C-alpha cells in the first residue's frame, strides 16, 4: 500500500494545472480538509472559493462561474454532493451543459462507521442517470492522475468519485489509458470480472487467486461508467462464460446494473453483481465492509469458484 489517497493526487494535478491556467478554480463546502485541498487553497487563494456548508449553492456558483469561462472543480463529500445538490447537478450542470467537474470525495463507505448519512452508496445511480453527466471512478493513484490530467483540459461536465484512504497501486506509470475506455488488467477466457474505483485492486487480486485454481479470469477496470465501454462488455460476454461485477455501491443502478443492461441488450450471459445491500451497511472499517458483503478479493474469487 502506498501512502497516498487518490484525492491527494488530484490536489497535485490541480496545483500544476492552476499555475498555468488562471481560469481553473476550485470550490469547496467547508471541505478543504476532507478533500486534501489545503495545498491548493494555500498556494492559489485567488482561484479557491469557499462556499460553506451549502452544497446546492456550491454547484450553482460553480455553474455560474463556468458560464463565464472558468473551469471549476467542485469538491464535497460524495454523500452530500450526490444527494443534496441533485437538482443543481441536473439543471445547472447537466442541462445547462456547463463545464463543471464535480468531485465526490470519501465516496462509498470510506467513512466506515459514520453511518449512512456519510456514505455515498447510490451516487453512481443518481448521477449516471442524469442527462449530460459523465461518471468516473478511478482505481489507483496512476489512473487518478491520468483522469484529472485529461479533465483539466476538456470542456464537458463530469462527476468523479474517489475514496478517503490510501489505495494499493493497480498500475505502474506506463500503463495504457484512454479516458472513456475501460482498461483490461488481465486477459482471461473463463470468466470476466468488471470493477471500478477502489474495488479494482480486489478484482485484480481475485484474478490472481483464481489463476492459482486454474481459472482464467479476465479483469476489467471500468473507471468510466458513463459513457460506458459497451464494446468491452459485449466482447467479454461473447468470449467468457459469465461476468461478475464488484463495486462499492448498492446493486441497484450501479456498475452491475449498467453492465447487465448492456449484456441484456446485446449478448446474453449470466451477470453476477456484487455490491452493497439495499439497507444500511454494517458499522465497520471499509475493508471489513467489503469482506462482509463478499466483494473483497477472496469474496470475488470464492463467488466465481462456486459458480463455475
Amino acid at each position, binding site marked *: 500500500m502506498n501512502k497516498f489517497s487518490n484525492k491527494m493526487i488530484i490536489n497535485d494535478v490541480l496545483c500544476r494545472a492552476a499555475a498555468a491556467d488562471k481560469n481553473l*478554480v476550485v470550490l469547496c463546502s467547508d471541505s478543504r480538509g476532507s478533500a486534501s485541498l489545503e495545498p491548493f487553497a494555500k498556494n492559489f487563494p*485567488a*482561484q479557491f*472559493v469557499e*462556499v*460553506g456548508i*451549502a452544497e*446546492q*449553492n456550491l*454547484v*450553482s*456558483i*460553480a*455553474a*455560474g*462561474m*463556468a*458560464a*463565464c*469561462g*472558468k473551469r471549476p472543480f467542485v469538491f464535497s463529500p460524495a454523500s452530500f454532493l450526490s444527494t443534496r445538490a441533485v*437538482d*443543481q447537478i*441536473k*439543471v*445547472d450542470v447537466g*442541462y*445547462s*451543459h456547463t463545464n463543471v467537474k464535480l468531485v465526490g470525495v470519501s465516496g462509498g463507505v470510506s467513512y466506515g462507521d459514520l453511518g449512512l448519512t456519510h456514505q455515498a452508496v447510490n451516487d453512481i445511480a443518481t448521477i449516471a442517470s442524469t442527462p449530460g453527466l459523465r461518471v468516473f471512478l478511478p482505481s489507483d493513484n496512476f489512473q487518478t492522475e491520468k483522469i484529472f490530467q485529461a479533465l483539466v483540459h476538456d470542456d464537458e461536465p463530469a462527476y468523479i468519485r474517489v475514496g478517503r484512504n490510501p489505495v494499493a497501486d493497480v498500475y505502474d506509470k506506463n500503463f495504457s489509458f484512454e479516458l472513456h475506455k475501460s482498461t483490461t488488467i488481465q486477459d482471461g477466457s473463463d470468466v470476466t470480472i468488471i470493477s471500478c474505483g477502489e474495488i479494482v485492486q480486489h478484482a485484480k487480486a481475485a484474478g490472481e487467486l483464481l489463476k492459482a485454481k486454474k481459472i482464467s479470469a479476465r479483469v476489467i477496470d471500468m473507471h468510466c461508467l458513463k459513457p460506458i465501454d459497451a464494446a468491452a462488455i459485449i466482447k467479454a460476454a461473447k468470449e467468457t462464460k459469465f461476468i461478475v461485477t464488484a463495486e462499492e455501491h448498492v446493486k441497484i443502478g450501479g456498475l452491475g446494473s449498467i453492465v447487465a443492461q448492456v449484456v441484456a441488450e446485446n449478448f446474453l450471459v449470466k451477470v453476477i453483481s456484487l455490491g452493497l445491500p439495499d439497507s444500511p451497511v454494517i458499522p465497520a472499517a471499509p475493508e471489513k465492509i467489503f469482506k462482509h458483503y463478499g466483494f473483497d478479493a477472496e469474496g470475488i474469487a470464492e463467488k466465481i469458484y462456486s459458480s463455475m
Partner: protein
Amino acid sequence: MNLKRKAFELRKDVVEMIYRAKNGHIGSDFSLMEILVELYYRQMNVTPENFRDDDRDRFILSKGHAVESLYAVLADRGFFPKDDLKNFSTHSSKYISHPTNKINGIEMNTGSLGHGLGLGVGMALAAKMDGKNFRVYVVMGDGEVAEGSVWEAATAGSHYKLDNLIAFVDRNHLQISGTTEEVMSLKSQERRWESFGWNVISIPGNDIEAVSCAVTLAKKISGKPTVIIAHTIKGFGVSFMENQIVWHHRIPNDEEYFAALKELDERSARCE
C-alpha cells in the same frame, strides 16, 4: 423610446404567444414586464451584437416560468426574429416553456426554482476574479424565495461583497395555490434581505421609472449586493387578470384574448 408604452406593446406579444400555444404563465409574465423592459432597453450592456463578448452584462430569469415575457423582449431587441415567437411551445421547437441557453440571448437553463441567485453569485464572483466590470441581474419570483437555496446564495452574495450583483424579487403576492401569505408567509422581505447583508431597495415594480431609479441607484452601491423588492401586480396591464390567482397560468379564451389585446392597446395609447 417610450418604455412604458413598450411594456404594454410587448404584453400583446405575450398574449398572442400564449393564446396561440394554449400554454404559458400570463400573470407572471405581466408582473415583471417593466423590470425586463427597463433592464434590456436602458440598463444592461447586452445586445445581439455583443452577446458572446466576455464583458457583457448577464441576465438570469430565475422564475423561468415567465419565459414568454423574456422571449417577447429578446425578439423585440433583435436576439432572434420576431416571427420565431410563433414557434413558442410548438412540437420540437427550441422555444420551450422555460428558458434554455440554446436560444440566443439566454444565458442559463432555468425553470426549477431557487437556482438563479446561486448562478448569479457564481457569475459575479467570476467577474470579480477577472477584474471585469460586467454586472449580473437575477429576477426571482416571490413564491420562489421559499426555496432554501435562495438563502444559501444570499449568504454568499453578501459574504463576497458582490456589488456587481443586482437581484429582483417580483413581489406580486400570488403563487399557484393562493396568496403567498396563505401558502408560506413571505412578509417583511425587505428586513429579511437586510439581515442577510444586502442593500435593499423597495419600489412599485410596475412603475418603470421607479425600476429605473432603483437600478441606477443599485449600480452606485459598493461593497454589497442589491436586491430590489419590486412590489408588482400579477397580471398587470389587463384589468380582469390583475391580482387574480387563476391567471397564474390560465389560457385566454377567444373573448378574453380580444378583450386583453383591446385593453393593452388602450393602455399603450394612453402612455405619454
